[in-house]
């Protein structure tokens, strides 16, 4: 796809049409280990619209751009959406101090999420650290469609691991790995992959770029290659396709870039240029 074709394809298909821009009150903040937390907001209509892998742009005040966060849960019954966040900088630290009843602005749902099975099968979820964020919601949807879900939960150390007690019930299997070996096997996610990848109809991965690149290297030649979907991060200016800031490199030279906020954040792994993605700073600044 050339740049021009991409633009033409996007014509009229505005992500903003289904996005809500609203003030939402914090209903709960669950402080986890280190600087991790899960925060929930009262936003019933957004909770109804949110699909796994989609995200919202959060705004805490006029002095910064919005920040993108994947929906980690969306509960239409309670009317809440939740985010699993690491306090790494200015806005995330501000979010961690939210109290019940305090409002933020939410813009969402935005982006293209994970593709979901037409008929039940087996899914593998590969989470690296904060990359677990979109998976509780994804697991909900998959399980609701009768899918057998295996969750491989990895992180550098236990403190960075998605809390095992928050993992959804009903998983077919779950395993934990930490690089330092202090919890579960001492391994990276990519080293702990199930032997029989071909048994999985779908593989979903989210985590640092180097992890995803390593994963793609392992899978790209095998039969699972076409079944791998990854959720990617890029610094975002707007979140809805107008600033062109969130460029994600596409493989062939002429193809240029996809927009993470609009064509992503979830991409079929094979559609991206991993050579260039790997070189991109793992943790953006």
């Amino acid at each position, binding site marked *: 796809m*050339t*740049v*021009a074709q*991409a*633009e*033409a394809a996007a*014509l*009229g298909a*505005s*992500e*903003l*049409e289904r996005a809500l*821009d609203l003030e939402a009150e914090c209903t709960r903040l669950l402080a986890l280990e280190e600087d991790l937390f899960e925060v929930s907001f009262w936003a019933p209509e957004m909770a109804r619209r949110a699909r796994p892998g989609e995200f919202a742009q959060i*705004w805490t005040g*006029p*002095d*910064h*751009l*919005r920040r993108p966060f994947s929906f980690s849960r969306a509960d239409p019954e309670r009317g809440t959406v939740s985010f699993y966040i690491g306090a790494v900088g200015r806005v995330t630290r501000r979010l961690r101090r939210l109290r019940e009843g305090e409002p933020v*602005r939410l*813009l969402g749902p935005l982006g293209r999420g994970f593709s979901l099975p037409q008929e039940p099968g087996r899914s593998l979820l590969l989470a690296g650290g904060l990359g677990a964020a979109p998976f509780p919601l994804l697991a909900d949807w998959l399980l609701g469609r009768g899918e057998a879900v295996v969750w491989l939960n990895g992180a550098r150390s236990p403190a960075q691991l998605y809390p095992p007690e928050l993992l959804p019930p009903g998983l077919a299997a779950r395993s934990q790995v930490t690089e330092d070996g202090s919890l579960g096997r001492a391994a990276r996610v990519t080293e702990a992959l199930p032997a029989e990848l071909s048994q999985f109809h779908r593989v979903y991965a989210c985590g640092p770029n180097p992890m995803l690149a390593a994963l793609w290297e392992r899978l790209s030649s095998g039969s699972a290659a076409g079944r791998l979907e990854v959720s990617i991060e*890029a*610094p*975002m*200016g*707007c*979140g*809805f*396709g*107008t*600033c*062109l*800031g*969130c*460029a*994600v*490199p596409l493989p062939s030279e*002429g*193809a*240029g*870039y996809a927009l993470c906020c609009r064509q992503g954040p979830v991409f079929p792994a094979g559609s991206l240029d991993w050579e*260039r993605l790997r070189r*991109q*700073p793992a943790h*953006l*600044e």
Partner: protein
Amino acid sequence: MSSPPDFDPSVPIGRGLVLRNPVAVASGTFGFGLEAEAMGQIDHLGAIFSKGTTVEPRPGNRPPRIAETSSGMLNSIGLQNPGVELVAREYAPRWADWPVPVLVNVAGASVEEYVRVVSRLDRLPGVAGFELNISCPNIAHGLDFGTEPGAAARCTAAARAATELPLVVKLSPNVTDIAEIGHAVEDAGADAVSAVNTYLGMKISLRRRRPVLPGAGTAGLSGPAIKPMALAAVARLRRVLTIPILGIGGVASAEDALEYLVAGADAVQVGTANFSDPSASRKVLEGCLEFARSQGLGRWSDLRWRGPEEAGTA
């Protein structure tokens, strides 16, 4: 959105083009208007300035392309755009049905490229005018036209010869005296100027011991941080120009917009604020109209400061 009685909120910006109101959206911060149109977020606008358009499609710069700074952001998009041909064939026809004039922001690496973009779009239904971006800091040579009065005038004159539509020239603030450039483009036939484009800036990653953005690491600074400088630029231009001035830089509220009108602008463009708040321009306009009503303004230019009454220093 209703205006106060007996108050005419419209703003002529040359060659018969009259904006319904003084609140437009800035190039590169509103795409080609299609996303916002789909949301019903364009009807209130005075004008839309499109993303910078070049002869050929451009993939843009490699990422990362944006970074936040104190009260501002840096961008190095590198004029990613689908090329003038697609704009002419796909976008312009849509604009023709809109209640808002769309002015195409034009960029190029040579005078000839500017002229080719203008000529291709001239007289197409939907194209209400042009904004020459002689000041984009993100492509090689992009700066030259904007920083040298002779080059700025040549570029303006050539575009002027290629169209009868309103021609706005967008000035770079990265110069010793913006009035000199403004003067040159007014003389060369510009109907109005936009002031300003982004300021040259850089963000450093201490962890990586290099700039955050790739290549030379420089990018364009926008947002509230630049407002004081942009206001000074507008005030300076107002002293020497007779044509309308579109004030740009950090406009996020009605107060910001009205401050530009005080400083000497005829209208404003909302830029970076569109990103954090997709309805920013609507709120800006509503606030401006409310202000006009409550203050009993006769016309916007009643707000304009006429200059210092007394000497500058004590």
